[in-house]
Protein backbone atom coordinates (compact mmCIF):
# COMPACT_ATOMS: atom_id res chain seq x y z
CA UNK A 1 0.00 0.00 0.00
CA UNK A 2 1.07 3.59 -0.61
CA UNK A 3 3.23 4.79 2.26
CA UNK A 4 1.44 8.13 2.30
CA UNK A 5 -1.77 6.37 3.42
CA UNK A 6 0.12 5.14 6.49
CA UNK A 7 1.70 8.53 7.04
CA UNK A 8 -1.69 10.30 6.85
CA UNK A 9 -3.27 7.87 9.31
CA UNK A 10 -0.39 8.28 11.77
CA UNK A 11 -0.41 12.06 11.41
CA UNK A 12 -4.19 12.37 11.84
CA UNK A 13 -4.35 10.24 15.01
CA UNK A 14 -1.37 12.02 16.55
CA UNK A 15 -2.74 15.46 15.65
CA UNK A 16 -6.13 14.78 17.26
CA UNK A 17 -4.52 13.45 20.45
CA UNK A 18 -2.42 16.58 20.78
CA UNK A 19 -4.93 19.22 19.79
CA UNK A 20 -8.32 18.07 21.14
CA UNK A 21 -7.72 18.69 24.87
CA UNK A 22 -6.12 22.08 24.18
CA UNK A 23 -9.03 23.21 22.04
CA UNK A 24 -11.84 21.65 24.11
CA UNK A 25 -10.67 22.63 27.61
CA UNK A 26 -11.01 26.39 27.41
CA UNK A 27 -11.60 27.25 31.02
CA UNK A 28 -9.51 27.03 34.10
CA UNK A 29 -10.46 23.76 35.78
CA UNK A 30 -11.85 24.52 39.23
CA UNK A 31 -11.73 21.04 40.75
CA UNK A 32 -8.78 21.10 43.14
CA UNK A 33 -7.81 17.44 42.77
CA UNK A 34 -7.90 17.65 38.99
CA UNK A 35 -5.87 20.89 39.03
CA UNK A 36 -3.32 19.27 41.32
CA UNK A 37 -3.21 16.19 39.09
CA UNK A 38 -2.44 18.30 36.01
CA UNK A 39 0.10 20.30 37.99
CA UNK A 40 2.02 17.15 38.93
CA UNK A 41 1.77 15.43 35.51
CA UNK A 42 4.80 17.12 33.87
CA UNK A 43 7.20 16.28 36.69
CA UNK A 44 6.05 12.68 36.98
CA UNK A 45 5.94 12.00 33.25
CA UNK A 46 9.38 13.49 32.55
CA UNK A 47 10.87 11.59 35.51
CA UNK A 48 9.28 8.32 34.38
CA UNK A 49 10.66 8.79 30.87
CA UNK A 50 14.17 9.66 32.07
CA UNK A 51 14.97 6.69 34.27
CA UNK A 52 15.87 3.92 33.53
CA UNK A 53 15.67 4.93 29.83
CA UNK A 54 18.85 7.01 30.10
CA UNK A 55 20.76 3.80 30.92
CA UNK A 56 19.37 2.10 27.81
CA UNK A 57 20.18 4.97 25.45
CA UNK A 58 23.93 4.64 25.90
CA UNK A 59 26.29 1.88 24.79
CA UNK A 60 26.85 0.77 28.39
CA UNK A 61 24.38 1.39 31.24
CA UNK A 62 27.09 2.82 33.52
CA UNK A 63 27.75 5.86 31.38
CA UNK A 64 24.02 6.65 31.35
CA UNK A 65 23.76 6.27 35.11
CA UNK A 66 26.75 8.49 35.85
CA UNK A 67 25.46 11.05 33.37
CA UNK A 68 22.10 10.98 35.20
CA UNK A 69 23.70 11.56 38.60
CA UNK A 70 25.89 14.39 37.31
CA UNK A 71 22.90 15.91 35.49
CA UNK A 72 20.86 15.91 38.71
CA UNK A 73 23.74 17.48 40.64
CA UNK A 74 24.24 20.19 38.01
CA UNK A 75 20.53 21.01 37.72
CA UNK A 76 20.30 21.07 41.54
CA UNK A 77 23.09 23.62 41.72
CA UNK A 78 21.22 25.83 39.28
CA UNK A 79 22.69 25.07 35.82
CA UNK A 80 20.29 25.74 32.93
CA UNK A 81 18.84 23.60 30.16
CA UNK A 82 21.73 23.88 27.73
CA UNK A 83 24.67 23.37 30.16
CA UNK A 84 23.02 20.35 31.80
CA UNK A 85 22.22 18.83 28.43
CA UNK A 86 25.72 19.34 27.02
CA UNK A 87 27.37 18.12 30.24
CA UNK A 88 25.34 14.89 30.15
CA UNK A 89 26.45 14.26 26.56
CA UNK A 90 30.10 15.06 27.33
CA UNK A 91 30.12 12.75 30.36
CA UNK A 92 28.81 9.82 28.30
CA UNK A 93 31.30 10.52 25.53
CA UNK A 94 34.28 10.60 27.89
CA UNK A 95 33.22 7.55 29.90
CA UNK A 96 32.62 5.50 26.77
CA UNK A 97 35.95 6.61 25.39
CA UNK A 98 37.54 5.04 28.47
CA UNK A 99 35.26 1.99 28.87
CA UNK A 100 34.09 0.87 25.44
Amino acid at each position, binding site marked *: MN*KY*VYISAMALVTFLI*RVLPLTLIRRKISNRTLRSFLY*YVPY*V*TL*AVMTFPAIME*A*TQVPWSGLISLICGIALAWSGAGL*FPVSVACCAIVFVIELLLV
Partner: protein
Amino acid sequence: MGPLLYSSHYGDFKMRGKRIDNFKRGIRVGIPIGLGYFAVSIALGIAARNAGFTPLQATVTSLLINASAGEYAGFSLVASGAGVLEVAIMELIANARYLLMSCSLSQKLSQSTPLKHRIGVGFYITDEIFGVSMAYPGELDPFFTYGAAAVASPCWGLGTLCGALLGSVLPLRVVSALSVGLYGMFLAIIIPPARRDRVIAGLVAVSFAASFAANSLPLLQHLSSGIKTIVLTVTISLAAAMLFPVKEAEEDE
Protein backbone atom coordinates in the same frame (compact mmCIF):
# COMPACT_ATOMS: atom_id res chain seq x y z
CA MET B 1 -10.74 59.14 19.17
CA GLY B 2 -7.23 60.15 18.17
CA PRO B 3 -5.40 59.34 21.41
CA LEU B 4 -7.39 56.15 21.81
CA LEU B 5 -6.43 54.98 18.35
CA TYR B 6 -2.86 55.90 19.05
CA SER B 7 -2.76 54.00 22.33
CA SER B 8 -4.31 50.88 20.83
CA HIS B 9 -1.74 50.91 18.05
CA TYR B 10 0.93 51.39 20.62
CA GLY B 11 -0.47 48.38 22.48
CA ASP B 12 -0.26 46.25 19.33
CA PHE B 13 3.26 47.38 18.81
CA LYS B 14 4.27 46.44 22.35
CA MET B 15 2.50 43.10 21.99
CA ARG B 16 4.41 42.35 18.82
CA GLY B 17 7.70 43.24 20.46
CA LYS B 18 6.93 40.89 23.32
CA ARG B 19 6.04 38.12 20.91
CA ILE B 20 9.33 38.53 19.07
CA ASP B 21 11.21 38.47 22.39
CA ASN B 22 9.42 35.31 23.46
CA PHE B 23 10.00 33.73 20.05
CA LYS B 24 13.72 34.42 20.47
CA ARG B 25 13.68 32.95 23.97
CA GLY B 26 12.00 29.91 22.47
CA ILE B 27 14.73 29.62 19.84
CA ARG B 28 17.37 29.66 22.57
CA VAL B 29 15.83 26.73 24.44
CA GLY B 30 15.12 25.08 21.09
CA ILE B 31 18.83 24.75 20.25
CA PRO B 32 19.70 22.04 22.80
CA ILE B 33 16.42 20.31 21.98
CA GLY B 34 17.29 20.41 18.30
CA LEU B 35 20.75 18.92 18.87
CA GLY B 36 19.25 16.03 20.79
CA TYR B 37 16.52 15.59 18.19
CA PHE B 38 19.05 15.45 15.39
CA ALA B 39 20.84 12.59 17.13
CA VAL B 40 17.71 10.66 18.07
CA SER B 41 16.01 11.02 14.70
CA ILE B 42 18.95 9.51 12.82
CA ALA B 43 17.94 6.18 14.32
CA LEU B 44 14.37 6.85 13.16
CA GLY B 45 15.53 7.51 9.62
CA ILE B 46 17.32 4.17 9.61
CA ALA B 47 14.17 2.44 10.91
CA ALA B 48 12.08 4.17 8.22
CA ARG B 49 14.46 3.05 5.50
CA ASN B 50 14.27 -0.52 6.78
CA ALA B 51 10.46 -0.30 6.62
CA GLY B 52 10.65 0.65 2.93
CA PHE B 53 10.10 4.42 3.26
CA THR B 54 11.96 6.71 0.86
CA PRO B 55 14.06 9.49 2.48
CA LEU B 56 11.37 12.02 1.48
CA GLN B 57 8.57 9.92 3.02
CA ALA B 58 10.61 9.43 6.20
CA THR B 59 11.21 13.19 6.50
CA VAL B 60 7.55 14.03 5.86
CA THR B 61 6.57 11.53 8.57
CA SER B 62 8.92 13.16 11.06
CA LEU B 63 7.80 16.70 10.26
CA LEU B 64 4.12 15.75 10.62
CA ILE B 65 4.32 13.45 13.63
CA ASN B 66 7.19 14.78 15.79
CA ALA B 67 7.18 11.74 18.07
CA SER B 68 10.01 9.27 18.48
CA ALA B 69 8.20 6.35 20.07
CA GLY B 70 5.13 6.81 17.88
CA GLU B 71 7.13 6.94 14.67
CA TYR B 72 9.36 4.08 15.65
CA ALA B 73 6.35 1.89 16.50
CA GLY B 74 4.68 2.94 13.25
CA PHE B 75 7.73 2.12 11.11
CA SER B 76 8.20 -1.28 12.68
CA LEU B 77 4.51 -2.15 12.18
CA VAL B 78 4.64 -1.09 8.54
CA ALA B 79 7.80 -3.16 8.13
CA SER B 80 5.96 -6.19 9.49
CA GLY B 81 3.16 -5.70 6.95
CA ALA B 82 0.46 -4.36 9.30
CA GLY B 83 -2.70 -2.64 8.01
CA VAL B 84 -3.54 1.05 8.30
CA LEU B 85 -5.99 0.51 11.17
CA GLU B 86 -3.39 -1.36 13.21
CA VAL B 87 -0.89 1.42 12.64
CA ALA B 88 -3.47 4.04 13.64
CA ILE B 89 -4.27 2.19 16.89
CA MET B 90 -0.56 1.85 17.61
CA GLU B 91 -0.17 5.61 17.24
CA LEU B 92 -3.05 6.15 19.63
CA ILE B 93 -1.33 3.99 22.25
CA ALA B 94 2.23 5.18 21.71
CA ASN B 95 1.25 8.86 21.74
CA ALA B 96 -1.57 8.86 24.28
CA ARG B 97 0.66 10.59 26.83
CA TYR B 98 0.35 13.71 24.66
CA LEU B 99 -3.33 13.73 25.55
CA LEU B 100 -2.37 14.25 29.20
CA MET B 101 0.23 16.85 28.28
CA SER B 102 -2.33 18.69 26.17
CA CYS B 103 -4.71 18.76 29.18
CA SER B 104 -1.94 20.20 31.36
CA LEU B 105 -1.04 22.79 28.73
CA SER B 106 -4.68 23.87 28.44
CA GLN B 107 -4.33 25.20 31.98
CA LYS B 108 -1.07 26.95 31.16
CA LEU B 109 -2.52 29.05 28.32
CA SER B 110 -4.48 32.23 28.91
CA GLN B 111 -8.23 31.60 28.56
CA SER B 112 -8.37 34.09 25.70
CA THR B 113 -5.82 32.22 23.59
CA PRO B 114 -7.41 31.95 20.10
CA LEU B 115 -8.11 28.63 18.39
CA LYS B 116 -5.28 28.94 15.85
CA HIS B 117 -2.71 29.22 18.64
CA ARG B 118 -4.27 26.32 20.55
CA ILE B 119 -3.90 24.19 17.41
CA GLY B 120 -0.40 25.54 16.79
CA VAL B 121 0.84 24.83 20.30
CA GLY B 122 -0.89 21.43 20.28
CA PHE B 123 0.73 20.37 17.02
CA TYR B 124 4.19 20.84 18.53
CA ILE B 125 3.63 19.01 21.81
CA THR B 126 6.60 16.70 22.19
CA ASP B 127 8.06 15.52 25.49
CA GLU B 128 10.72 18.23 25.31
CA ILE B 129 8.70 21.14 23.94
CA PHE B 130 5.97 20.37 26.46
CA GLY B 131 8.63 20.35 29.19
CA VAL B 132 10.06 23.77 28.34
CA SER B 133 6.58 25.22 27.74
CA MET B 134 5.43 24.12 31.21
CA ALA B 135 8.62 25.58 32.71
CA TYR B 136 7.76 28.97 31.16
CA PRO B 137 7.01 31.43 33.98
CA GLY B 138 3.30 32.29 34.29
CA GLU B 139 0.87 31.94 31.39
CA LEU B 140 2.40 30.47 28.25
CA ASP B 141 2.94 32.71 25.23
CA PRO B 142 2.40 30.46 22.15
CA PHE B 143 5.25 32.30 20.42
CA PHE B 144 7.70 30.89 22.94
CA THR B 145 6.61 27.38 21.95
CA TYR B 146 6.82 28.33 18.26
CA GLY B 147 10.38 29.58 18.75
CA ALA B 148 11.42 26.27 20.30
CA ALA B 149 9.62 24.33 17.57
CA ALA B 150 11.16 26.48 14.82
CA VAL B 151 14.57 25.05 15.73
CA ALA B 152 13.64 21.64 17.05
CA SER B 153 11.28 20.50 14.29
CA PRO B 154 13.67 21.10 11.34
CA CYS B 155 16.42 19.31 13.29
CA TRP B 156 14.08 16.37 13.79
CA GLY B 157 13.30 16.25 10.07
CA LEU B 158 16.95 16.72 9.08
CA GLY B 159 18.16 13.92 11.37
CA THR B 160 15.52 11.60 9.95
CA LEU B 161 16.60 12.53 6.42
CA CYS B 162 20.27 11.87 7.26
CA GLY B 163 19.41 8.53 8.84
CA ALA B 164 17.34 7.47 5.83
CA LEU B 165 19.97 8.66 3.33
CA LEU B 166 23.18 7.64 4.97
CA GLY B 167 22.24 4.84 7.34
CA SER B 168 24.63 4.76 10.26
CA VAL B 169 27.42 6.96 9.04
CA LEU B 170 27.89 8.71 12.39
CA PRO B 171 30.10 6.79 14.81
CA LEU B 172 28.06 4.90 17.41
CA ARG B 173 29.95 6.73 20.15
CA VAL B 174 28.68 10.10 18.96
CA VAL B 175 25.08 8.92 18.62
CA SER B 176 25.28 7.36 22.09
CA ALA B 177 26.59 10.59 23.65
CA LEU B 178 24.07 12.82 21.86
CA SER B 179 21.15 10.61 22.79
CA VAL B 180 21.37 11.46 26.51
CA GLY B 181 21.13 15.19 25.75
CA LEU B 182 17.34 15.01 25.88
CA TYR B 183 17.40 13.36 29.28
CA GLY B 184 19.76 16.07 30.50
CA MET B 185 17.12 18.60 29.51
CA PHE B 186 14.40 16.73 31.35
CA LEU B 187 16.58 16.87 34.46
CA ALA B 188 17.11 20.61 34.06
CA ILE B 189 13.31 20.99 33.95
CA ILE B 190 12.30 18.78 36.89
CA ILE B 191 15.20 19.16 39.35
CA PRO B 192 15.09 22.92 40.15
CA PRO B 193 11.38 22.77 41.21
CA ALA B 194 12.20 19.58 43.14
CA ARG B 195 14.77 21.52 45.08
CA ARG B 196 12.18 24.15 46.06
CA ASP B 197 9.30 21.77 46.76
CA ARG B 198 9.70 18.61 48.81
CA VAL B 199 6.56 17.03 47.34
CA ILE B 200 7.95 17.33 43.82
CA ALA B 201 11.32 15.98 44.98
CA GLY B 202 9.54 12.97 46.48
CA LEU B 203 7.48 12.53 43.31
CA VAL B 204 10.59 12.52 41.11
CA ALA B 205 12.18 9.87 43.34
CA VAL B 206 9.00 7.75 43.38
CA SER B 207 8.68 8.10 39.60
CA PHE B 208 12.28 6.97 39.02
CA ALA B 209 11.76 3.97 41.32
CA ALA B 210 8.38 3.01 39.84
CA SER B 211 9.63 3.33 36.29
CA PHE B 212 12.65 1.17 37.12
CA ALA B 213 10.39 -1.40 38.78
CA ALA B 214 8.00 -1.44 35.81
CA ASN B 215 10.91 -2.22 33.51
CA SER B 216 12.09 -5.10 35.70
CA LEU B 217 8.85 -6.72 36.87
CA PRO B 218 7.93 -9.70 34.70
CA LEU B 219 4.24 -8.76 34.47
CA LEU B 220 4.77 -5.18 33.37
CA GLN B 221 7.85 -5.73 31.25
CA HIS B 222 5.90 -6.53 28.11
CA LEU B 223 3.81 -3.36 28.06
CA SER B 224 4.92 -0.84 25.46
CA SER B 225 6.91 2.06 26.88
CA GLY B 226 4.13 4.47 25.89
CA ILE B 227 1.54 2.57 27.95
CA LYS B 228 3.93 2.25 30.87
CA THR B 229 4.51 5.99 30.85
CA ILE B 230 0.77 6.67 30.89
CA VAL B 231 -0.10 4.14 33.61
CA LEU B 232 2.69 5.37 35.88
CA THR B 233 2.00 9.06 35.21
CA VAL B 234 -1.72 8.75 35.92
CA THR B 235 -1.27 6.60 39.02
CA ILE B 236 1.50 8.63 40.65
CA SER B 237 0.07 12.06 39.76
CA LEU B 238 -3.39 11.10 40.94
CA ALA B 239 -2.07 9.74 44.25
CA ALA B 240 -0.05 12.92 44.72
CA ALA B 241 -3.07 15.11 43.86
CA MET B 242 -5.15 13.37 46.53
CA LEU B 243 -2.43 13.28 49.18
CA PHE B 244 -0.93 16.71 48.52
CA PRO B 245 -3.52 18.96 46.84
CA VAL B 246 -1.88 22.11 45.54
CA LYS B 247 -2.78 25.53 46.90
CA GLU B 248 -3.66 28.14 44.28
CA ALA B 249 -0.55 30.24 44.91
CA GLU B 250 1.87 27.36 44.35
CA GLU B 251 0.51 26.63 40.91
CA ASP B 252 1.23 30.07 39.57
CA GLU B 253 4.93 29.88 40.30
